[in-house]
């Protein structure tokens, strides 16, 4: 009897949690300013900036190390993160990535935006969108490893510390996207 009411209560709680009224996103300049403060705080306290692809990379190395530890020890690129006794997840960047997921979830929850849905352009189906999202993620991550960092680790963090190479990467990312935007206009318009 008590369990039944608890379940009911729980459902009520979750319903209330996930069905909050959906709020507007922040003003872009406000968001930028707060992001700048987070980035500065990171550098100020730790000497390191932000990053996302590095955490994902270690996730891959961690999974590979479970499935095929022998293989990890033979691939030079993986040895650095997961070779031998190394735990690929034992690194600060993994914490930042996990934190980003938690932070995104908290913000989404507070503002009623945690919802199972697919965002896509009007001319394609959900399934097509999923396919392109997968391909895009594949390409972006490949490029990010090649450039030693993504929009966060290179463009944002390196941009603020005025690294010459990071500015080159930043222009290449935006340049590449604008260059191919017309070719892929059907996906979004």
């Amino acid at each position, binding site marked *: 009897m008590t369990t039944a009411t608890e379940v009911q209560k729980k459902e009520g709680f979750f319903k209330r949690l996930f069905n909050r009224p959906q709020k507007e996103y922040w003003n872009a300049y406000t968001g930028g300013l707060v992001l700048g403060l987070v980035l500065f705080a990171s550098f100020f306290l*730790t000497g390191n900036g932000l990053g996302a692809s590095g955490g994902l990379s270690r996730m891959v190395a961690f999974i590979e190390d479970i499935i095929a530890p022998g293989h990890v020890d033979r691939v030079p690129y993986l040895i650095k993160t997961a070779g031998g006794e190394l735990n690929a997840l034992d690194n600060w960047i993994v914490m930042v990535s996990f934190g980003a997921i938690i932070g995104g979830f908290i913000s989404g929850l507070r503002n009623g935006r945690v919802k199972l849905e697919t965002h896509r352009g009007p001319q394609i189906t959900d399934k097509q969108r999923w396919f392109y999202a997968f391909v895009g993620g594949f390409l972006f991550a490949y490029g990010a490893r090649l450039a030693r960092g993504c929009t966060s680790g290179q463009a944002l963090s390196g941009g603020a510390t005025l690294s010459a190479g990071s500015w080159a990467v930043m222009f290449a990312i935006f340049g590449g996207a604008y260059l191919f935007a017309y070719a892929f206009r059907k996906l979004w318009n």
Partner: protein
Amino acid sequence: MTIFPLPIDTIFLKIGVYAIYLLIGIGFGYVLESSGFNKSTKLAAQFYFKDLTVFKVFFTAIVAAMLLLFGAAAVGLLDYNLIWVNPTYLWSGIIGGLVMGVGFIVGGFCPGTSLTALATLKIDGIFYVAGALFGIFAFSETIDEVPHFFDGSYFGRLTLMDLFDLPVGLVALLVTLMALFMFWGGEKLEAIYGKVDLSKAPKGRYIGAGVFVAAAIGLIAIGQPTNADRWNWIADEQQARLDNREVQIVTEELLHTMHDSKLNLVMLDVRAEKDYNLFHLTDADHVLPEEVPSMINDFIALPANTLFVIMSNDESAATEVWKYMVAESVPNVYILEGGINNWVDTYATPYEDEYCAGEKEDLQDDEFKYILTSALGDHCPAAYPHLEDHEHIEYTPKIKMELKRAPSAGGCG
């Protein structure tokens, strides 16, 4: 003395360090979601000039963080030398960037934003993250085929200040003005392509722009700390170490260090070239004092087990270089006590004696005291004495390896 960035690895236990990074990550994810970066259509609209939120958030963040960083460095709160600055690998960076650009327009996210999309249950975000994991897997399987491309065109810690030979303040002002110009142009484009009503945009953004420009001009006015400023901040503490002879290591300690394979020993011989040619230690690098400033970034980037020992004929020149390097936050720097003169006194063998025509009279400070009939370089036993060939004296070891404060890999590890 500059105290930030904090040497967090020495202050906190590992769990504390990870908690700090987790909190930073939470802040990161929170802002990304709140700015609308979990919505792929909003991100992609950027590239059709309909909604330039990404551009605005991105460059506002860069400018704000940049001004705060260099502002804190200017007043001596933050040590820029200990901040991770992404090293430049030009061509792999540019090609990687272009590939990322294609991934951006096809996938509708970048890795950071896809994490918040995944967190808020956007199915396209989940597929994107899955694709990214496979992309990383594919990279790790293929990159070892083209190591020269991946590791080539390396320029080390190269900043825009180095590239254009401009002071920090001016570069910061140019970046700020460029961002403001892009915001202005971006809003015009949004009005045309996105039918955005600009009259509803908050007026506070003009005040913000004014504050940014004023801060950048302030940076030009204050300037960044010079080596002399940096030395003054730490002079009390470090001069005492010099005076108490805590950093001058005896020949015997250097000899043992030369034979210690666990340490990455960097010996810097800062004497004139002719003295170096007459005699120097095996593996000692010839570096003139005026060349040291351009090498600081490389020194800081060396592994944590790196130990620097500086030597001149006696100690004066070595001490000046020591002060310069310590003021620039290079860790683990020591001076060879008594310099090369003392080394030769201690370890000369009959072989060296044969080429020695006596000692110079009225010796100047920090001058090589022996008259050699031939330039020996390091082709003599005293340049690399073997441990077993010498009787050992008791000495109190002075070298204490500090934990490295500067990060050795940024967000790309």
